[in-house]
């Protein structure tokens, strides 16, 4: 068996000593999103954290599908693959399995990743290939100029639904959890710090990381997430999940989430009815809890959870594959084609 690495005189082994700056991750391509698009911030945060993750840039690959968001790889000076609609996760799986040492990222949209690409996404998650999936959720099809998407709220009026959309939206986090994901998180374009920290967490996770990023499409769905991003409403509408910490939120940190039986409810910490000790304490490693928290998403009386819902360890597909290969080599010896061709029943004609 050959190893690709043999074929190329590589500095990659020493690459991690290189000190990068954000600029090093900016490609020479003009960024072509609409002015004001939330994608700009996500790109900026990604470029900002890249120098910190300790991976030489030639060992980083960004794979995407089709959509505004999927133009992302062009703007990062790493390896990049702008695939076809919905298939980024499958392409990325091939990249990672072929070269498990690469740091592989997928950028996809709510249409690309949850509509046409929904199946590859859920299969990637259960397989737990170590790929970081960034789903830019703007609750709209941007590139095709504004049709509703699988995450659009029901009743949404768009070009293709002048009377309002009829289908109930996916909650990406719940879907990912239902697909046995090992890392599920949510963040948003307009909180650079949080976004950066989640990107780093995703990178750090061994296995598929699924990150939903709320992203404003100011042209076709402006303000979809303003409740969670704008000063006036944000503090009372959002709850940050932090491992080991009780679930507190509100401008004055005066509200919390308590478990009533198995259903979460909002309680006030002010009126003496509940204290901090009654609150749910977040535990990223608990699958059941992660379901409960993700399920809060479309309940209007509940704050929207942001942060890491779940982060658990499970063997990665590529490691297991590598293990099988090593085991086979150990057991049978390295493959020899000449031998194989001549193995089994043969006969000779003089």
């Amino acid at each position, binding site marked *: *068996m*050959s190893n690709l690495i043999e074929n190329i005189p590589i500095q990659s082994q020493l690459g991690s000593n290189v000190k990068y700056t954000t600029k090093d991750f900016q490609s020479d391509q003009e960024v072509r999103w609409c002015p004001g698009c939330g994608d700009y911030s996500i790109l900026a945060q990604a470029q900002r954290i890249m120098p910190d993750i300790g991976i030489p840039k030639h060992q980083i690959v960004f794979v995407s599908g089709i959509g505004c968001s999927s133009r992302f790889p062009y703007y990062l000076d790493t390896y990049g693959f702008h695939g076809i609609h919905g298939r980024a996760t499958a392409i990325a799986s091939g990249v990672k399995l072929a070269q498990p040492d690469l740091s592989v990222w997928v950028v996809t949209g709510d249409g690309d990743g949850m509509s046409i690409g929904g199946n590859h996404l859920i299969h990637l998650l259960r397989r737990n290939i170590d790929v970081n999936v960034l789903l830019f959720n703007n609750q709209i099809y941007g590139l095709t100029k504004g049709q509703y998407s699988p995450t659009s709220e029901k009743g949404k009026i768009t070009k293709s639904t002048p009377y309002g959309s009829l289908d109930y939206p996916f909650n990406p986090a719940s879907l990912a959890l239902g697909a046995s994901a090992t890392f599920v998180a949510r963040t948003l374009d307009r909180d650079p710090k949080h976004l950066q920290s989640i990107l780093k967490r995703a990178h750090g996770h061994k296995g598929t990381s699924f990150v939903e990023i709320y992203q404003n499409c100011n042209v076709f769905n402006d303000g979809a997430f303003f409740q969670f991003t704008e000063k006036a409403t944000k503090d009372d509408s959002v709850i940050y999940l932090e491992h080991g910490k009780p679930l507190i939120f509100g401008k004055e940190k005066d509200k919390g989430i308590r478990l009533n039986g198995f259903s979460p409810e909002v309680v006030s910490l002010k009126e003496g009815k509940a204290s901090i000790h009654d609150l749910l304490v977040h535990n990223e490693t608990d699958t059941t809890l992660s379901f409960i928290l993700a399920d809060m998403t479309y309940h209007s009386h509940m704050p929207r959870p942001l942060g890491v819902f779940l982060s658990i360890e499970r063997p990665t597909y590529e490691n297991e*594959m590598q293990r*099988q290969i090593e085991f086979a080599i150990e057991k049978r010896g390295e493959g020899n*084609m000449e031998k*194989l061709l*001549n193995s089994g029943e043969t006969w000779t004609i003089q």
Partner: protein
Amino acid sequence: MREKKIKNLDEATIRFAGDSGDGMQLAGTQFTNTTAILGNDLSTLPDYPAEIRAPQGTTSGVSGFQIHFGSTEINTPGDSCDMLVAMNAAALKVNLHSLIKGGSIIANTDGFNDKNLKLAGYSSNPLKDESLSTYQVFEVDITKLTITSLQEMNLSSKLADRSKNFFALGMMYWLYDRPLEPTLKWLAEKFANKSDIREANIRVLKAGWNYGETTELFKVRYAVAPARLAPGKYRNITGNQATAWGLMAAAQKAKIDLFLGSYPITPASDILHELSIYKNFGVKTFQAEDEIAGITSAIGASFAGALGATTTSGPGLSLKTEALGLAVMVELPLIVVNVQRGGPSTGLPTKTEQADLLQALYGRNGEAPLPVIAAATPSDCFHVVYESARIAIKYMTPVICLTDGYLGNGSEPWLIPDYEKLPDIIPHFRTDPIGFLPYERDEITLARPWAIPGTPGLEHRIGGLEKQNLTGNVNYEAANHELMVRLRSEKIERIANDIPTAEIEGDRQGDVLVVGWGSTYGAIKTAVQRHRAKGHHVSQLHLRYLNPMQKNIGAIISRFKTILVPELNLGQLIKIIRADYLVPAVGLNKVQGAPFLAEEIEVKIDELIKGH
């Protein structure tokens, strides 16, 4: 025990037929392997239903396996058989038409009870009435004899019954003078941990042999001498196995990993199965969630420097359409093996056909040319797949490699190639960052560089939008688009400079040229040889390269009065021949889920000759 008479034959065709659960494929395969080891040339045709176990005793549940072997060159599994083993009435009903007049039938009488006769739709027992009078019928109660021979073993009768294929096999070994050892050896390995099954099968096999030897039933035995094949070391191989090995050999030669992204589908799944064994060759098999993930994961793997491959059959090829276009655009090596089966749609999943050629050539949106290559025989799959990989890597292009159900499941003796002497495959991995342009092309091949992630300084982006010449950046300009469309097209055309010219079998000119492609090779060859033996001016031209075509095809075609194009479809290659060379080629088309009989082609040639 009296010595039985031994009759020498140049060739023989036998067919095992029974219920899907009767193990006929296994018996056939064993007979084939033993026959191969004896040095006969041979060709096989497995033929089984689409259901896993179709209803027992019915005609729709019949599974058959035909083998044609000889001391002469064997090109087809035989138009008809000389000897039919019929495990039950339905098997007789379905297969009798393929038995030559005067041929022999070994009938398992237990399979002709009233229930079986009824299920098969017989109103009277053909073993009892006159209907088989033109054949030689040997009635053997195989079921009972099998159970009897296992009496001491205390097996369940169900288990005992399962061994009856070995009784039939034993008889046939005796009849055709073949040794038991290869099968005994196989049993020992296969059932190493299941001693009762092993033991039972061994006993029954021997009982079958002894039955031939001791009873008076058979008056004659047959001997078929080894074939006068080219000297060298041989093995028997099926098309699907040869395909798997061809991929592995190419990857090894190129010193890169093989990555197979595939989704199971009949009759291609065995390639996936075969490749998944060879983890010690570094082969990575990925059973994807569907065909689209199969091909796109393979494209991803190719991007990362592996030899990406995907294997499928018709409906799966349809699903890969969009991704094939992507592969054309990103110009990465990729092997797509399509084991054709009966269509359209789900069609006839276990039957063979050649009706995906035009799809392979044109089934993509936009101008998306790619090489299409087809195998002619089971063992040829190895060479054709290897050649596909050579072209894919050298020209940085996806290649569609066409085989079919008949080739994939069929087998033949194969002169084992010398691995060292296989053509070199040298991936030109770019490593130098200086002056690197992702879409700068090799002057001769027009291939772009293979610049894989992990290589410092070559960071770049590719994708399915039109690319700017040289830089590969997204570009929507009119002139650039035209240039790129034409460059991609010319790259594929230039492959014609890099492949051997076509060789004609027979005279360089004449009355009829039979132009074929794919698995019809053997039948055409036989038909043409028969005509040539009669002194007719008939030649054969067999195309492995369907796109681009070899450069001398036009010249060859122009030297014949009539061009005949037999195909297992309604006429696909013929469209290309007519369009490219403007000749009034004539088609011979059969769409029955089965290969051509040599005779069918022979008759058509006759017609054309008489027409002159």
